[in-house]
Each structure stands twice: as C-alpha cells, then as structure tokens.
C-alpha cells in the first residue's frame, strides 16, 4: 500500500495521456496458421501496431495487411557503432532496398528500423546515419527509426523509477530527423513486467505506442492480467491499476564475497601454519635480497606454497575480471561486447563464464611467463623457482583486491575502482620484470645478455599489444557503446 500512495503522489506530476496505443514486438511464426492465430489474438485484445524483424513470408504479410495493423519493419542490426556503420554502409543501404522492394506493396508498413542500440551519442555516427538517410530518401519514402535506451534528457528519466524497469528503450523515427520520440518498447524480462511497470509506461508514453514483446503477450502467467490492463487503459487513460510491490533485478554478486573470503582464508591459514611461507613472504617485503638469493640458490623449497599462491591469484584474477565487467558494463553493455567480440561467447556471457574466462586467461598468461623464464634462465633448476618469483610480488594484489571489493560493495565512485584495477593489472603485467630483477641480482649464471631473450621481447610484446588495442578504433567504438548502454 505505501508504494501505491507513493506512486499516486509521483504520477500526479504527470498528466495521463489523452489516448493510448498498444503494439506487439512480434516474433513472427514461420507457419501461416500459427501466425493467423497470433494476429487474431492481437486484434481481439486491442493491439494496433506490430513491430517485426526481418523478412516475413508473403502469406503471413498478406494476412497482416488484411487485418489493418500498422507495421514497423526492423532490419535487425544490433549494437551499431560508427566503425561498423562506416564499413557496412553500402551493405545496410542495399539491405534497406531489399526490404523496401519486398514490402513496398503493403500499405500497412509505416516505417523501417535501421538499428537497435547504436552509438547515437557519437556525432560522426549521427552524420553517417544522416548520409544514409539522404541516399535512400528518393526511394524509401517511409520514416526511418532506431531503437535505443532513453538518455538523461528524455522524459523517461523525469520519473525516477528506472532502476527496476531495465527500462524500455525508445523507438524514434521521423522523416526529417532521428530525434522524435515515438513510442516505448518494454525491454526487461517477463518477471519484472508488473502492473507498476505497465502503468508507468502508459503514463510516460505521452500517447505514443507502447510495444510489448510477444513473449510477454503470450506468457501464460501474464496473459490474462495484461489483457485486463490494456482493456482498462483503452477505455479510460486515467485508469489506476492495483500496483504490484516494487521488484528490482537482483545484482548482488554474493559469491564474490565468498570467493574473496576463500582467498583470504587460504592465504591467512597457510601463512599461519607454514613457517617457510611466512618467512619467505616477510623476507620478500622486508629483506628482499635474502629472498631472491634463497630462491635462486634453491635453498628454500616452497613448491606447495607456490601452487597455493598461484591458485589464489587465479581466483583473484577471475574475481577482478568479473568485478570490472560488472561495474563498468551493464548487462546490456556486456551483451554488446559479446556481440562484437564473439570469442567471449565461449564463456556464454554469464557471470560464472566471465569469472572462468578471467581465471583461464590469467593461468595461460602466467604459464607462458613461467615457462619463458624457466627455459631462458640457466640458473633455474625447478619450475617452481620462476613461479615463486612471479607470484610473490603479486601478493600485493590481494590487498588491492580488498580495496576494490570494498569499493564495489560500498558503491564508491567508478574512478577509484578503475584506478585500483589498473594497479592490479600493472602488478600482473610487471611481475615479469620484478622477477627478472631478482634473477639479475642473485643469479650466478645470468648475464645482461639474457635480458635480450626475456625483458626486451616481453617489453616489445607489451608495447605492441597496448598499441594494437589503443589504436583499434573499432574496439574503442564498441567499448564506448557498451559503456553507454545502461
């Protein structure tokens, strides 16, 4: 009940629309009989507009045309960046012509959608779209539209309930410019689609069409309620529904805390029970020359401690990757990233997948470093010697992680999380140089010539990798788009 009053209080700032229109974001069945059933259902329950992706079979299209729906066609390009637009502008234009010539005889087609989520904040992207619009203007007379999330200046944000909505992106189209707000599409999941969300959308729709995905329209648990709500608002736009309690999407990665404590407990208990480990850690930070001499001369054999330290670092790497992704990118942003860099698909885009990806990446990276040092430095008699030299400086990362995890859970500014994440990365990347420094100081057979086989090529690879990523405009475009998708 308190939510109800709160809602009434807040909605009183907004005027109810004079009229309301409903549409379906329709996943068209390929079978004409099934499609006919769907269409009859839409008509019976007050839906007046359809938004469909791609090419629909002729018999289904003929059917839609007969039923007097307004139809919006969508080309189906998702996460369009400036680079992709620039590289594929001719292909997109040709695709538009294909669509246009296929659909041109149907009067019900009202507009063509170019993309869903794109770099609309980027001026050169907007110019690219304008060029495309101008080129097709003489052929495609219908308005064009794109689907995107509302930005901060939009009407939608004046009503601050978007935290539970996973909010409906807007559909915009206009024959003159791509800025006019023309409707809302619900983009969250079925579970979160409550009467509160529905009523909110109606009040914010400003009389424009509200599109509901067909998966929700046909959801057995929602179907009946949804039909009642639609009927209520079609009869009277000032209707007030009995509101469901506030639901928010759970985004508390509790297992991060569990994993973090695993690392702390492993480190802490091993530190307490293993004197050699304790001694070597304190020597590393307080009497460093003795530590490197111990390791290089193979006097202290702490292979189990090294394995354990490597394991802890792997968990930390997985955690930090997950944390970084989760903090910097929204689920939609992560989807955009995976869409462009399909190799992330191997990890299925799930949180656990990202965690495993971080672990595997770290394990591979460290294995290369360990074997590289082991095979190039003659002083090493055991594989655990270079491993120890590499893992010990990274103990600092345990403390950096404490700061990052705390910052994350206390919702500290992203800037500080970014700074500490960079410090973490620095330690992972530069531990190779710290290890080499120990080798140079305490190795008996090691000469400066060995640096040509280790530090120099490693440094070149690092520089090359950084240059590759920093100069890859396509990579940055997608990262920027992913970052903007909230």
């Amino acid at each position, binding site marked *: 009940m308190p939510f109800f009053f709160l809602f009434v209080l807040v909605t009183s700032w907004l005027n109810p629309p004079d009229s309301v229109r409903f549409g379906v974001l329709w996943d068209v069945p390929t079978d004409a009989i099934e499609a006919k059933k769907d269409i009859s259902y839409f008509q019976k329950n007050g839906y007046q507009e359809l938004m469909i992706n791609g090419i629909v079979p002729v018999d289904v299209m003929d059917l839609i045309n007969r039923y007097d729906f307004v139809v919006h066609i969508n080309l189906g390009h998702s996460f369009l960046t400036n680079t992709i637009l620039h*590289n594929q502008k*001719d*292909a997109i*234009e*040709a695709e538009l*012509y294909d669509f246009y*010539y296929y659909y041109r005889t149907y009067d019900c087609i009202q507009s063509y959608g170019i993309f869903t989520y794109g770099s609309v904040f980027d001026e050169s992207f907007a110019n690219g779209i304008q060029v495309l619009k101008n*080129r097709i203007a003489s052929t495609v007379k219908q308005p064009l539209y794109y689907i995107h999330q509302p930005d901060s200046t939009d009407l939608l944000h004046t009503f601050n309930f978007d935290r539970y909505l996973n909010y409906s992106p807007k559909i915009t189209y206009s024959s003159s410019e791509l800025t006019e707000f023309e409707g809302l599409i619900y983009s969250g999941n079925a579970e979160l689609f409550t009467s509160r969300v529905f009523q909110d959308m109606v009040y914010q729709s400003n009389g424009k069409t509200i599109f509901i995905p067909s998966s929700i329209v046909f959801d057995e648990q929602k179907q009946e309620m949804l039909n009642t709500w639609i009927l209520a608002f079609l009869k009277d736009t000032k209707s007030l529904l009995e509101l469901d309690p506030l639901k928010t999407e759970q985004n508390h990665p509790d297992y991060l805390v569990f994993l973090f404590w695993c690392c702390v407990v492993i480190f802490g208990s091993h530190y307490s029970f293993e004197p050699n480990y304790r001694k070597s850690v304190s020597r590393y930070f307080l009497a460093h020359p003795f530590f490197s001499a111990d390791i290089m001369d193979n006097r202290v054999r702490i292979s189990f401690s090294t394995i354990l330290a490597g394991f802890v670092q792997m968990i930390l790497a997985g955690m930090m990757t997950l944390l970084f992704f989760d903090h910097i990118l929204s689920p939609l942003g992560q989807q955009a990233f995976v869409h462009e860099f399909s190799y992330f698909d191997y990890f299925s885009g799930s949180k656990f997948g990202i965690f495993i990806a971080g672990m595997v990446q770290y394990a591979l990276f460290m294995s290369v470093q360990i074997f590289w040092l082991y095979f190039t430095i003659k002083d090493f008699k055991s594989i655990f010697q270079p491993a120890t030299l590499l893992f010990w400086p990274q103990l600092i990362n345990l403390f950096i992680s404490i700061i990052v995890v705390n910052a994350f859970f206390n919702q500290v500014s992203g800037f500080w999380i970014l700074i500490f994440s960079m410090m973490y990365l620095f330690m992972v990347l530069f531990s190779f140089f710290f290890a080499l420094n120990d080798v140079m100081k305490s190795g008996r057979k090691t000469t400066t010539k060995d640096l040509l086989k280790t530090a120099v090529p490693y440094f070149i690879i690092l520089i090359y990798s950084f240059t590759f990523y920093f100069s890859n405009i396509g990579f940055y475009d997608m990262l920027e788009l992913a970052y903007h998708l909230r």
Partner: protein
Amino acid sequence: MSHHLDEIDIKMLTKLQKDGRVQRNKLAEMVDLSVPSVSERMKKLEERQLIEGYYAVLNAKAFHLDITAFIFVEVDNSQNYKKFVDNAMALSEIQEVHSITGDGSHVLKIRTKNTVSLERLLSQIQSWDGVKKTRSNIVLSSFKETREIPLTDGATH
C-alpha cells in the same frame, strides 16, 4: 568423342589459363614441341570447346564499378525461371547468373558503380515477373577472383 588430355595439353592449358596472350613460340618452348605442333594442338582444344575463348580482364575499380554484390533472388514459380534468366542475361551489370539450391532460387553476381545504381538494378530485378524477394550481400573485400579451373592428368574424357 574422346576428350582425353595428355600432359602436354595440361601444361599448355595451365599456361594459357594464366596468360591467354602467351606467344606460341614461348608455349612451344615450354612444352618442347615445334610451333606448328602447338598451333595444331591449340586449334584442336578450341574445336573441342575445351577453350571457350580469350578475354581481356578489365580492372573494375578503374572503371568506377565500386560495388560487387551477390544477390540471392527468390523466383516464386519455375515457369518464370526462363524469363528471369533471359532478363538477367540481358543486363551488363549482372556478371553471373546461377540457379541454386537452398535459400532463394538464383544467385546473381553483379558489378555496379554505386549504391544508387545498385538500387536501380534491384528495382529492375524486383519488377521482373515472379521475383518475390532479393537479399543483397555486398562484397567488402575480394581475396581471389579467377576463372581458372583445376587441371589434372586425364581431366576430361
């Protein structure tokens, strides 16, 4: 009619596929035969239609034909196929016409100046009888484009 090719024929054809304008004395030198023998063999290969012709390969970019595309066309009734193919053959922008299995009934390879001329071409194709839909795939970059066919000993019979 037997079309058996010996090793010399294959050597000549391989060379001719790469360089149709190769001089006959060079060809003769390559296969260790006299010029008249080589000429005789070439004449036979042409008569047997193993060699269909000699063409100049023009640089499309130099002629500002910047767009290459593969257009998958769905022609709805096989009765319209012949007319469709005749129409396609008549257009100089269409370089290849193939009847295919799978998605669509035909695939066309086209070269055209720009997206404006591509739009005109698509509009033309769409106006032909029986054409239901087209799907245009624009070539972004081409790594191999050849009319050469693989030749092995006894390639034809």
